[in-house]
């Protein structure tokens, strides 16, 4: 039990969680049809990247750079969410759907 705790709270644990979040986010992006669901997946992936940056800043470099990049990730993720949701709203009003597969206006 103590071994498991030490493993999980060390660098391994952080990287593992990061990898799992990344994979789950990717699954969500690919497997969902709802555009909002895809956005949820993107947020998970960005969080996974943030975890890795913060973990390496704590366990490896001991400098602030990793955390600054994590802050940038948070800022950009929020801006991206705002724009993405605005696009979804536009899609909803134009086509009465938020199914990502039906957003094919450019193809026709």
């Amino acid at each position, binding site marked *: 039990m103590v071994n498991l705790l030490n493993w999980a709270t060390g660098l391994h644990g952080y990287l593992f969680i990061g990898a799992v979040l990344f994979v789950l986010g990717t699954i969500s992006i690919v497997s969902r049809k709802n555009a909002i669901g895809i956005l949820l997946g993107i947020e998970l992936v960005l969080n996974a990247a943030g975890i890795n940056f913060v973990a390496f800043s704590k366990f490896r470099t001991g400098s602030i750079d990793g955390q600054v990049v994590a*802050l940038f990730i*948070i*800022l950009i993720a*929020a*801006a991206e*969410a*705002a724009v993405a*949701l*605005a696009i979804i*709203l536009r899609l909803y009003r134009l086509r009465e759907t938020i199914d990502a597969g039906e957003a094919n206006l450019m193809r026709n």
Partner: protein
Amino acid sequence: MMGAGALLRPRSKSNIGDKGIAYECGELPVGSAWVKFNIRFYVIAIVFIVFDVEMAAIFPPATIFRDAVLGQTPGLSPALVFLELFLFVGLLVAGLIYCWVRGDLEWVKGITGAVPKK
């Protein structure tokens, strides 16, 4: 607290007759409860999130302003931090003015004026 309540309260059978129906001033509810709502809520939320993010970004530079002014941080001039704050406020004001002029902050379009001209 929910647990304490579960122990104390008398058992009773829920949802007999009309009891479970949503309360809408005594009338029976008409249609779905999940109505389509004003899109304004959404626009306000978008404006909010950008401001919120800028807020999170300005907290770290704001904390070092005092030390810079008192000259306790070598190599960091207060002018730089002030310029940073000024840029931050300037960008927020620019965004705010844009939304204001284009009428995105109006709740009811056409009544309070400031309707964008096409």
